[in-house]
């Protein structure tokens, strides 16, 4: 009987999992707090991409293609390659389409974000396979009683022609940024919390580099004035555990750059997401679940281009994870499944597929002491894939911790977005890629937080475009793809003073170099900046006033995926000085902020085909009731 009981315990233990297998400490993760977001003047969800230290490219400054690791982003990498994963309160939310990272479509507004945890390399949060890292967004928990927030932001880029437009010194008009409007209402009860929000983003892409690519008169106001409208709602309740649900619907009209095509497409898109998550804990057993249903309907409109990206895609995702802690051991297991469907506007033909993943992990050690965690997973999609990770945490002193981590993912199946993009763009599937990362780092926490991490990244079978996208003529879908291998060594250094002082200084430096790579990968990797440094000084001289200075430098890039006959296929190093001043009024119910970006007016471009940004201003006014804590 005793052995049967033990077997029963073992069986229960084997169907257990931890919600997040990655180490709890900072290590190679970056944490962005609400204060960081406010002080740098984050106005839209896409501003997170810059703060996350992601390599990013943008043609219009509104939509971004981002990569958290050091591998080439979409447009240089072919459409089937993995992209970064976005989680909101632990729920994976589809956020990539046509190669773009569409954070504006997420069911969360920037002022609702409490913190963001960025894992820059391959990781497996719960049952989700994230080969290119995660941006995990955590929303601010609702306060008891009703709360209302309304935020308005307007901005402008300097460099307009003014009266010189009537002279030979005329120059094109430049971007109008905003208005961005966010309104949120919430009610927090003892067990139930509900919130609802509306967001509007307007953006006038008027840069001459961008407009010069179109025949005169081809672009209408609808093309140039991008408009996003979003409504969202959320519910959270405590009862037999913690459970939450979010829902959102977003419409987006305007010119959207499609990186795999290397050109813009006028689109009228609507996106809808419903997502749920929760966990129930009974003694040492925790059961966690997540699920989402997403739909994206993209329509081309008034397009001069022969290409058609009009389609509808939908996905259904669900996961269950179970974890059990036994003394110093914890054991975890989980499973997830996803079903995707794509219907092309041109043919009306439906294509669908189903994928699944199971995983298990074992951890030994106390959360504050030495700890070892080992996990394996297997994915079943178009091909069978495996992944594994080993984490070791060793406290060297009371303030210093040494970390080591290995993550390997072999024959990574196409993500839902990559699979759908391939079908829409009519590109055949490539051999599945593999990635591995080894990281070794140390972290010291006292009045100063110091972290140093060295990494070795390797990618096999990574598929990139073999030749530039023909902008002027030809069909970009005819480009061939080539697979390659690369090994990249890098280091990340960060330092920050404690948040409690009046002056807070934080610094971040990231450097990498290609150790070995096939020729095609070596060329493709030139599109990724090899160095980035960022220093932020935040000062609060008076209780209701805060200033911030941000200095950043990112090395230049070269894009062999861009047709050099059309434009220079390089971007210069970005050297930016940003200033921000904030003032709170009416016992912090009202916040006003002035942000100046690129004060030195240095060339700022994130894509060879993209706009060049001048010095620009952003003014924010935010009203919150009742008074924030």
């Amino acid at each position, binding site marked *: 009987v005793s052995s049967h009981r033990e077997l029963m315990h073992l069986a229960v233990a084997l169907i257990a999992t931890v919600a997040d297998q990655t180490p709890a400490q900072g290590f190679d993760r970056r944490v962005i707090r609400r204060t960081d977001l406010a002080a740098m003047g984050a106005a839209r969800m896409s501003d997170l991409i810059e703060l996350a230290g992601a390599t990013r490219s943008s043609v219009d400054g509104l939509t971004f293609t981002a990569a958290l690791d050091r591998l080439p982003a979409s447009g240089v990498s072919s459409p089937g390659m993995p992209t970064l994963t976005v989680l909101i309160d632990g729920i994976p939310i589809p956020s990539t389409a046509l190669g773009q990272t569409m954070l504006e479509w997420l069911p969360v507004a920037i002022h609702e974000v409490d913190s963001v945890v960025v894992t820059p390399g391959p990781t497996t949060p719960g049952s989700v396979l994230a080969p290119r890292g995660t941006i995990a967004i955590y929303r601010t928990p609702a306060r008891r009683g009703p709360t209302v927030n309304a935020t308005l932001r307007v901005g402008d880029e300097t*460099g307009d022609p003014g*009266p010189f437009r009537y002279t030979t010194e005329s120059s094109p*008009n430049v971007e109008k940024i905003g208005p961005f409007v966010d309104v949120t209402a919430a009610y927090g009860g003892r067990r139930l919390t509900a919130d609802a929000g509306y967001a509007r983003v307007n953006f006038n892409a008027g840069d001459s580099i961008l407009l010069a690519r179109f025949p005169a008169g081809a672009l209408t106001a609808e093309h140039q004035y991008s408009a996003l409208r979003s409504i969202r709602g959320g519910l959270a309740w405590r009862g037999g555990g913690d459970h939450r649900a979010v829902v959102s619907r977003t419409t987006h009209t305007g010119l959207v750059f499609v990186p795999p095509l290397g050109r813009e497409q006028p689109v009228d898109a609507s996106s809808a997401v419903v997502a749920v998550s929760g966990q129930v804990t009974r003694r040492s057993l925790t059961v966690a679940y997540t699920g989402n249903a997403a739909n994206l309907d993209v329509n081309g409109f008034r397009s001069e281009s022969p290409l058609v990206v009009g389609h509808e895609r939908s996905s259904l995702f669900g996961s269950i994870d179970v974890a059990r802690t036994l003394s110093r051991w914890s054991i975890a297991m989980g499973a997830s499944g996803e079903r995707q469907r794509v219907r092309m506007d041109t043919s009306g033909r439906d294509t669908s597929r189903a994928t699944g993943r199971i995983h298990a992990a074992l951890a030994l050690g106390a959360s504050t002491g030495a700890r070892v965690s080992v996990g394996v997973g297997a994915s079943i999609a178009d091909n069978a894939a495996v992944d594994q990770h080993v984490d070791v945490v060793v406290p060297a002193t009371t303030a210093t911790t040494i970390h080591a981590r290995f993550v390997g993912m072999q024959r990574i199946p196409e993500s839902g977005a990559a699979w759908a993009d391939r079908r829409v763009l009519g590109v055949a599937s490539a051999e599945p890629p593999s990635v591995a990362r080894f990281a070794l780092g140390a972290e010291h926490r006292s009045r100063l937080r110091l972290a140093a991490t060295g990494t070795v990244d390797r990618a096999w079978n990574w598929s990139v475009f073999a030749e530039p996208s023909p902008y002027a003529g030809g069909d970009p879908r005819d480009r061939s793809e080539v697979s390659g291998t690369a090994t990249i060594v890098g280091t990340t250094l960060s330092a920050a003073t404690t948040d409690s002082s009046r002056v807070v200084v934080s610094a971040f430096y990231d450097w990498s170099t290609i150790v070995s790579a096939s020729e095609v990968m070596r060329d493709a990797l030139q599109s990724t900046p090899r160095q980035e440094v960022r220093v932020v000084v935040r000062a609060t001289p008076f209780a209701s006033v805060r200033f911030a200075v941000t200095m950043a430098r990112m090395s230049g890039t070269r894009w062999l995926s861009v047709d050099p006959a059309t434009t220079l296929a390089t971007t210069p190093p970005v050297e930016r000085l940003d200033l921000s001043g904030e003032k709170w009024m009416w016992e912090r119910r009202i916040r006003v902020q*002035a942000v100046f970006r690129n004060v030195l007016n240095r060339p700022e471009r994130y894509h060879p085909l993209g706009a060049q940004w001048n*010095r620009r201003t952003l003014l924010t006014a935010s009203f919150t009731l009742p008074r924030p804590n």
Partner: protein
Amino acid sequence: VASRARSARLASLGAANAVATLFVAGATAQAQSPEAYSQIAVRVERVTPVSIGRLAPLYRMAPGVGVAVEVPAEFGSVGVALSRFSYHRRPDGPAPDFTADVRTLAWRSPALRVRRARLTAGGKLADFSMAFADSALVEGLRDERELLVAATVRAEIAVTSRLALSFDVDAGRIMFNNPVDLRTVSAGAVWFSRSPDWLRRFLQ
């Protein structure tokens, strides 16, 4: 033209020097400044252009009027202002007339007091909003906005405890693609009042 440009350069250099001197001197005078948000100052002024930089061959700028509201802050004072100017085209100029509404956010150093005079210096950020009298353009394209950044020096001479005369010298730059330097002098009257309690609480 060269001598005018030289005097404009000297004027801006002088304004910058004065700003720096007054900033340092004003910082030592902070202890004498009124409590933050305890006072409100309303100013009406006439603004006269000294130099309009690269716009001079195209336009003649007429004197404008401005209204400003200022309050002492935790350090120095802050204020908002609205002023309006008219730019009239030169007889042979290619560009049409335009009206500029300038919405300004200003900060000034704590005052340096010399007998009845108070000297301050500071900086201004403004939205230089233009409306062109160009009927050939559709309505939305007749307006254009640009950032104006300026350094400013002010002398105030108290007439009574509540009334003062003020004289400003401003040196600014409109951040067009071809930046335009703008230098103005202003003269006006300021009326001081104690801030109502609700306003003080609001601003704190």
